[in-house]
Structure formats: structure tokens, C-alpha cells
């Protein structure tokens, strides 16, 4: 089920109504758990079995880890958790990719190997819930968290529908304490929740799908070589689209959770106002980048084993981060490029020290960061390397003779792209440290008018049935 659908509105209204019935907290938690399974099964019912498997395995593994004092036993159970979760990912997400690479590899050495196509359906949200359950087992293994006392609480932590299929990836230490005692949203949480839901839907339906996607699709889904203008407009359109799509989903997730009385961590902190690439990754998809930092980068030694090893760890982390997004070498290249940027930045910082805090330095470096991040999105969005290199070449003025305009044939789209992206970057800069609303102390009635305008814009956008981009991960 997607947030930008009327069936979700109906579903959420029923869930909220039951959540506010005068019944026990246990029954209300069962309502949330049942609703979460229903939310998931609305996509493809049989795949809920995988979710149950991941839930059950990590529940058992964490308890076993906590109950054993011998390191080897604890390691064994952690290994079970890793094997099952990563195994699920390997089969369902990377199975076809692995087979196609083996075939290509064998073809490269002259062996004609042609296995049957695996034809595997990618289960919705598998990358998110496996990483979430893994973080639970790893935290228990490291002694940072105790295993959950109740299976119901734990299952709700894994399955809680606002964040189930596209994050944020929530840590058990953040969520489990919240389910220990009864909760309903107070008036502030309701207001924040409804505002975040509205804002998220506006970002997704109006900005990402209606105004930005057409230009990005015209550039990346075409095959004719683009001219410089198309390359820039289409690339910037995707920079805006990916942010509005994913941050829109995260806002909806936070908003829905807030209406139910829960708090889940923010996933985006004005990423297009990042100054440098390490700053970008502290602001973009925070729940994933912190997961990769805590469970992969630090596990590999982080920056504790010398400079060369630090660079290698950074690179490995970003390559895995790239691959997490999709079973394709273009995602690996995207991750690899970010790994390079982070490595270069660390090297540079070691040579010239930190940046000045003066805006005359921060702003140009921030805009440079945004430009490089945008160009790097090309590898994330392009269907293959051929198209990616075509677009990158055009971005730098190296266009083919037969290059043509690869944008929707209307006056609105390029203008909308440039306006929205400029607006996004400006808003991100204005709220680098705190929210625009807090910063400028907007009167309450102006907030109301703003929310009403957002609702009106959503109502006046017919919709195109586009799924959230991060559902495919």
C-alpha cells in the first residue's frame, strides 16, 4: 500500500479509529501489528512469509545471543541472523544479478553457460526490514541493547507500517521503549503528524511525480544523445525528484507515526545544503548512512587502523551502500564515486584542515557539493552505463553531432524544474540548522493557509500512479 492513495487514507482512518478505542494497550498493539501485516500484504500476500521469517529468526537469535556467555555461541547465533537476512537479500534482490554476472564472466573465458532465467520478484521493502532486524541482533550482540521482552513488541518494531517498506531504518533502542507503555497522539503530535503527512504527499504527488519526473524521464529513458541544456535540466530534475520522492515518503512515515503517538527519527536534514560529502551523508538518508557507519564501517575498523585502511573502509562502505540500492553495476558506480569523494575530502582535510565557517566559503563549497552530487545521480538514475556516459558527457559540453533536446515538449517543465530545484536548495540553506518555520516564527494562521494551499495543490494534481522510487530497493 502506498501513502499517496485513497485506500491508504481509508486504511489509516480505520487504524486510527481502533487505536483510539477504549481498549487495552495490548489490543491496540495487536491492531497496529495486524494493520502492518495488512499494509504489507496489500502488495503481494505470500511475501509476508519472508517478513515473518526475518522477524522470527532475529527474535530467536537475539535471545540466544543474550543468553549465552560463550563468545563462540554468541557468534554462532549472530552468524545465523546474518546468514538468514543477507541470504534473503542475496536470493531475492541479487539472485538475477549474480547469475547474469556469472554468465558474463564465463562468457568472457569462452564458456557458453546459459542457465534458466531466475525470474525472481523483489519483495517490497526487503532491504529495509532485513537491515532493521539485523541492527537489532547486532546491537544485542554488542551489548548495546537487551533483547525485547515481548514478541508482540518486537514484531511491531520490525513491522510498524509507517516505516516498513521504505524506512527510516529504525533502531530497536529508539522504538522498543515507546511500545512499553500506552500511547496516543497528543494535540501537538496530531498537528505535526498531519502537517508532515500533507507535506510528504505534496512533495511526492505535486513536486516529484507531476513536475519533476517528466523531465527526468525524458532525459534518462530516451536513447537519442541529449544536448547540454537537456542534460542539465534532466539531471537537476532527477536531483529534485529523488529528494522529493524519498523525503516525501519519510515525511509521510514520520507523520503517520506521529498521528499514532510514536516518534521515528528523521531521515533527511536539508541534504542539498551540505558543505562537503561527509556532511552530505550526515544529511541524506540518515538512517541508512548511520547504519552503514555503525555496522559496516566501524566493524571493518573505521579510522582506527591507519590512513590507507580508513580510505579502503570508506570505499568498501560506499560500494556496499551503492549495491544496497539495487542489483546493478550503475548503483555500485554511484556508491564508488561517493566513496572516492569521501576519500578525497578526508585526504584534503588532512592536508589543509577544516573549512572556514564564513558564508563566503561555505556557500560556494555547498553549491559545488550539490553540483557534484547531482552529476553523480546520473549513475543512480540511468538505466545503463551507455546512457549514463552519454548524459555525463553532455553535462560537460561534449555532445554528439546528432544531439537533440530531450525534454518534454512544453514550456512548463524546464521552468518548473529550475524553479523547484532552486527553491529546494534555498530552503535547505535557510533551514540548515533548524526548520524554516521555527526560524521565521510564522504566525499560526499563515501555517493554516500554507497547509490548505498544499491540500489544494494535491487535490488539483490528478496523479500518475508512480510508485515511490525507494520501494524498488
Amino acid at each position: 500500500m502506498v501513502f499517496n492513495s485513497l485506500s491508504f487514507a481509508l486504511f489509516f482512518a480505520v487504524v486510527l479509529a481502533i487505536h483510539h478505542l477504549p481498549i487495552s494497550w495490548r489490543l491496540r498493539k495487536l491492531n497496529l501489528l495486524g494493520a502492518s501485516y495488512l499494509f504489507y500484504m496489500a502488495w503481494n500476500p505470500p511475501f509476508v512469509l519472508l517478513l515473518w521469517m526475518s522477524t522470527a529468526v532475529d527474535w530467536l537469535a537475539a535471545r540466544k545471543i543474550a543468553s549465552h556467555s560463550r563468545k563462540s555461541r554468541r557468534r554462532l547465533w549472530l552468524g545465523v541472523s546474518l546468514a538468514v537476512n543477507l541470504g534473503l537479500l542475496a536470493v531475492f534482490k541479487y539472485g538475477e544479478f549474480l547469475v547474469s554476472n556469472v554468465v558474463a564472466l564465463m562468457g568472457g573465458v569462452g564458456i557458453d553457460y546459459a542457465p534458466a532465467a531466475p525470474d525472481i520478484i523483489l519483495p517490497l521493502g526487503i532491504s529495509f526490514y532485513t537491515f532493521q532486524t539485523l541492527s537489532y541482533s547486532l546491537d544485542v550482540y554488542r551489548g548495546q541493547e537487551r533483547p525485547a521482552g515481548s514478541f508482540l513488541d518486537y514484531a511491531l518494531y520490525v513491522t510498524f507500517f509507517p516505516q516498513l517498506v521504505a524506512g527510516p531504518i529504525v533502531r530497536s533502542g529508539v522504538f522498543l521503549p515507546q511500545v512499553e507503555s500506552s500511547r496516543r497522539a497528543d494535540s501537538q503530535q496530531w498537528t505535526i503528524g498531519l502537517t508532515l503527512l500533507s507535506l510528504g504527499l505534496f512533495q511526492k504527488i505535486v513536486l516529484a511525480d507531476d513536475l519533476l519526473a517528466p523531465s527526468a524521464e525524458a532525459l534518462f529513458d530516451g536513447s537519442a544523445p541529449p544536448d547540454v541544456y537537456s542534460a542539465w535540466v534532466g539531471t537537476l530534475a532527477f536531483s529534485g525528484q529523488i529528494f522529493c520522492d524519498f523525503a516525501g515518503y519519510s515525511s509521510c512515515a514520520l507523520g503517520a507515526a506521529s498521528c499514532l503517538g510514536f516518534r521515528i527519527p528523521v531521515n533527511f536534514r536539508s541534504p542539498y545544503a551540505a558543505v562537503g560529502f561527509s556532511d552530505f551523508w550526515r544529511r541524506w538518508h540518515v538512517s541508512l548512512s548511520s547504519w552503514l557507519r555503525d555496522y559496516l564501517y566501524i566493524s571493518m575498523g573505521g579510522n582506527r587502523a591507519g590512513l590507507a585502511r580508513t580510505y579502503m573502509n570508506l570505499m568498501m562502505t560506499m560500494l556496499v551502500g551503492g549495491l544496497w540500492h539495487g542489483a546493478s553495476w550503475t548503483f555500485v558506480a554511484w556508491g564508488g564515486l561517493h566513496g572516492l569523494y569521501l576519500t578525497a575530502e578526508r585526504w584534503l582535510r588532512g592536508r589543509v584542515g577544516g573549512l572556514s565557517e564564513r558564508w563566503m566559503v561555505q556557500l560556494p563549497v555547498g553549491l559545488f557539493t550539490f553540483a557534484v552530487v547531482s552529476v553523480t545521480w546520473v549513475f543512480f538514475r540511468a538505466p545503463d552505463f551507455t546512457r549514463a556516459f552519454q548524459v555525463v558527457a553532455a553535462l560537460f559540453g561534449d555532445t554528439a553531432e546528432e544531439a537533440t533536446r530531450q525534454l518534454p515538449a512544453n514550456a512548463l517543465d524546464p521552468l518548473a524544474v529550475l524553479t523547484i530545484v532552486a527553491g529546494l536548495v534555498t530552503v535547505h540553506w535557510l533551514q540548515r540548522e533548524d526548520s524554516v518555520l521555527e526560524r521565521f516564527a510564522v504566525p499560526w494562521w499563515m501555517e493554516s493557509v500554507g497547509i490548505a494551499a498544499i491540500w489544494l495543490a494535491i487535490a488539483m494534481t490528478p496523479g500518475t500512479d508512480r510508485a515511490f522510487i525507494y520501494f524498488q530497493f
Partner: protein
Amino acid sequence: MGRLVRWRVILLALLCFVGAVLVLEWLWREFGFRPSVVDGMERWAVERDRVYDPRAVTLVGDSRMLFNLSRDGLEDVVPGAEMVQLAIGGSQGGAVLRDLARDSEFAGVVVVSLRAEGFEPGQLETQQSYVEHYDREWRLEKWISRRLRTELASRLVILNPAVALRKLADEWLTERELTRPWIVFRADRTIDADFSLRRAVPGVSVGGIVRNHYEKAEISTPEDWLIHARRIEGWIDEIQARGGRVAVVRFPTSGAYWRYDQRYYPRAKYWDRFARESSALTLHFRDAPELRRFELPDRSHVNGSDARAFTRKLMERLRGLGLFERWEPSGDAGGFQRADQSA
């Protein structure tokens, strides 16, 4: 107090929103806009779910089905019948007919709009994406969303795509004026066209478009074409073997459109040979003077104001040919059931 302050933000927002919707709704209606639903794969899939209704008359084919037929017209001739509109504009109905043939649960009445070109292999798959979407993506939650959205859109002008923010902004940028749409999509997927509102594009004629289209098209020889037509005939046989009934209709075209149709697919060498071999009921508009009498403003479709009368004439003709002979009134609620099921 703080609690009240927070709630009043949402309450005032709600008030502003409802007020703005009411004002805009009144404004658009004053400008002559009417409600129109969003038509696409999901709306099509809602209709596809309905083909199993024993009262269903399923319509397959191209835009002529959407423009020329109306629910009222069908109801006039076959009381109690449920129109299921599976036609898709700008494409040919082969893939949808194949889908119905392969669906062992389907054994209903089908009316197919096909021109000779629709039998060509290159045209057979033009509606396949709708079938695939239905097979792979269609599920309950989408059905609920689409039904709700359609119900709302068929009542509120503000949800008409013609007054969508994007459309308004684009029109303002390019033409600096608001244009009333000449077509309205009804909730039953038929199109209500008002050709008097349609703007002529300078230098573009129907004849020129059709000529260009045929000049680029791959046109089979009559012998090869008949082999392709037999594939479609196979699907018709499958449906009829299960107790269904299929009528294939060549809808009217006129002027340059008809002349080019005839130049590239002369009726005697193409359509008539299929009609002779087919187990389906076949009807060519040239054999139905009552259908030829309708004005076709764009040489291919009737005006919305004529759709009910056109449907009535077509259905009367098909009834005369025996399309509904296995069907009879069921007596309850003006019902309409297959005779072999009503017992």
C-alpha cells in the same frame, strides 16, 4: 490553551481548503467545465474486473468504441445490460480479445471494433501493456483507490485533469488563455466529445494524418493478412466455444479517412474475406445505412450528442443479427441474463 492553539491550525486549514474548493468548483462550472475522470490502466482494470457479470456486454477495440457508444443507448436496446468498456484509444483490441479468450472464466458477450489494420501483427500487441498491468499489478488496494477517485472525479470539476495545476500553468505560459476541453471522460470510460470546442491545428488535416500513417505502416498482402486474421478468429472461437458470443464491427469512417482505408485495405480483399470465414457476427458500417447517416466531425468519431442514438442503432442491428439471442430478460430489476443460466 496550547492544545487549542495547535488544533486551530488544522481547523482553519480545513476551513480554507473547503472554502477554496467550493469557490473553484463554482468558478469552473461558470466557465463551462464539467467533471471528468482520469482514464488509464487502473480505470481500465476496474472495468476488466466486471467482465464476469452475467449482464455484461464487453466492448473491445479503439477510440470509436469510446466516442460512439453510450451506456444509455445500450440500456435502451438491451434493458438491464451492463456496459463494460475495455476499448483503448489510439490502439487496436487484439491483445484484449486474446486476454478474454485465454480467461477460462469468461463466456460473455463481446463487441469488438476492428479495422483491417487491427489484424496486422504489429497492431496486435498495442493494448498488451494494459493486460500485463492487470495481470501483474492490479490488486484490491488499487481497486479501492481507483473506485473512490473515480466516484469523486465524476462529481467534482476541481478534479478534472483539464483544470489540474500543471495544465493551467502550461496553458498560461503558452497561450495566455484558458481552453475548455472538448472531451470529457465519463466514469464508465466512454468519452463525451463536443467537436464544436475543438481547435483546428493549422496545416494539419485528417487526410494528411491518415496518409502519413499508412505510408509508414507495414501492410500485408491479402493472403498474409488472412493468415493473421485467423489468429484473431482462433480467439473468437475460444470465447464462443465456452458459450460466449462475439461480434466484430467495422465502425464508420468518412471522407479522406475512408478513402485511405479503402486504398490501403480495400474492403473486398480484406474485411469481406474475414467476414466470410469468421464464426463471429460481423458488421461493416457500409452495410448499415442507419450507421452511415451519423455525422463524423473528424471523419472517424461521432459527437457526444449523437452517441446514444448511434449506440441504439448499432445495438438494434446487432440484436437483429442475433448477438443477444441466447439472452433473455430475467424479470428482476430489469435484469438481463444468459438464457442458459436463468433457468
